[in-house]
């Protein structure tokens, strides 16, 4: 008997440019984008740059409850309308373009807290119409937070809070490894809200520092942090989180982020030339990650970003 060959499974591996167009078009339907990682750890910055280069506009940006460099860059590039992130900071200093844009009224930054964002993602991931919250008291954030409301608790009778589902149209994640089907392996210690976002979102695009063979995944399934089921596209982008960290591959590039923030501070006081040149050099001009790596001094320069071994 002539037997058919086993049919072929589609790979989810795509290019950075195609991923950006996929995301941009989806965000034109509904502008809610969510970014994985936390502050200077595990942020999908290469995808963010590609999205900016593809001309995304008027975005509503969500994240795990803390973000900094990437949201500031998105604002500097003029792509953001509203920010739904509780904490926006470079940690050692403020985010200059975020500050300017909010102070000038160009961007609306909502007052939120971590439990509202996480609870909203939980409601979406769980498929329920809301998540109860019972740990918010006394903060002025409660007077302004647009996502929560007070409800009468059917069990305790008390007034508590509730948040409806937060369902990002597109989520960008960065992981260290994936197979070609999109099973993501995080080798970093923390995985932040990345699993949760993947489960809560309409479309999920992941960058990874490297694609690994199928067997790496099959031989150790409990190491997979985000199953391929939740992933729509995966892009192999070496140093894809730069200038944020991707443990154990590379640490955050504090020097780069500080230099960027200096340009942002200069722009606050009227001198935008440096910031514009930064965006041109790092966002607009590169047509590939190889170009970007060259623009930031080449792989030899990036090799200095040692993750400082676990056993130090």
């Amino acid at each position, binding site marked *: 008997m002539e037997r058919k060959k086993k049919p072929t499974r589609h790979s989810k591996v795509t290019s950075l440019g195609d991923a950006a167009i996929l995301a941009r078009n989806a965000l034109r339907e509904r502008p809610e984008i969510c970014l994985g990682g936390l502050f200077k750890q595990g942020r999908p910055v290469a995808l963010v740059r590609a999205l900016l280069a593809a001309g995304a506009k008027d975005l509503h940006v969500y994240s795990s409850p803390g973000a900094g460099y990437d949201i500031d860059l998105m604002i500097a590039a003029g792509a953001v309308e509203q920010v739904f992130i509780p904490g926006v900071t470079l*940690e050692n200093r403020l985010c200059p373009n975020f500050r300017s844009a909010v102070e000038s009224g160009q961007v609306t930054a909502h007052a939120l807290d971590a439990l509202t964002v996480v609870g909203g993602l939980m409601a979406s991931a769980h498929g329920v119409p809301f998540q109860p919250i019972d740990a918010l008291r006394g903060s002025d954030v409660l007077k302004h937070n647009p996502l929560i409301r007070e409800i009468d608790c059917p069990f305790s009778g008390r007034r508590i809070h509730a948040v409806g589902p937060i369902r990002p149209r597109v989520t960008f994640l960065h992981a260290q490894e994936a197979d070609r089907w999109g099973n993501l392996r995080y080798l*970093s210690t923390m995985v932040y809200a990345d699993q949760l976002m993947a489960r809560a979102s309409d479309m999920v695009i992941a960058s990874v520092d490297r694609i690994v063979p199928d067997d790496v995944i099959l031989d150790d399934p409990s190491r997979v942090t985000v199953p391929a089921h939740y992933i729509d596209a995966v892009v192999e982008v070496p140093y894809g989180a730069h200038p944020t960290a991707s443990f154990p591959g590379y640490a955050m590039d504090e020097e780069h982020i500080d230099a960027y923030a200096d340009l942002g501070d200069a722009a606050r006081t009227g001198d935008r030339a440096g910031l514009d040149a930064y965006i041109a050099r790092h966002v607009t001009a590169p047509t590939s990650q190889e170009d970007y790596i060259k623009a930031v001094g080449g792989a030899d320069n990036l090799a200095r970003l040692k993750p400082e071994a676990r056993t130090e």
Partner: protein
Amino acid sequence: MSAAFSPLEQMVVVLARDLADGELGAAGAAALVPMAAIALARELHAPNMTVGGEMFFNPEPGHLYPSMLDDRALGRCEAAETFIELFGHSHHGLDFFFHSGLQHDAYGNINLHHVGGTLHAPKMRGPGAANLSYCHTSTRFYICPTVHTARNFVEKVDFITIPGHLSGPEAKRAAGLTKEGPRFVVTPRAVMDFDPATLRMRLKSVHAGHTAEEVQRHTGFDLGIRGDVPQTPAPTEEELTVLRERVDKTGTLRI
């Protein structure tokens, strides 16, 4: 008399002494001084303390990092969690937590959102804050900014990001804040606590090399100074040795 020590080392030692064995706590966002205090307490008298509630447990960093949200600091720890587990901890509360802000007021309220203007038309927009729950679900918290001036210690904050004692016992009760709230305010100049009757901040002790008059001058509200103010007990030789040899090996607290 102990060796010379830095203002941050003094802060660390004051905080470490107040953390008890067996407690569960976390460092908050401005983590350098709190993480050092926690690590010192674990070395000296609190081996059964658990550092948790911020998505990792009991980190053993090679040296002090300014942020704990750094895998270089977390590469060695006992376990990692995610924001879902943090959601639970935020409700169940910790034993202790740490905060600091752009402005701190006479009742220990903290502002991280804006100075001047309004939230959506601010004169100066701050970073905001992720976690607003540990300040009142936890047994207590500490306020520990690394600067202390009349600009960041003001009578009334422009925006209450982190509630301290609000405007006193009645307001706190009305808002459902049932825990201790801020216990101490530790700065490079002094230690403040709160009057149990009014919950207003008052000067508790001044660090070596500082005076009550100076602290008051750098504070935007009355610190209720009556008579002599005690000196903050300096770090002991043991505290300093352990701090430098086992916690802050690279001297970050002395820069």
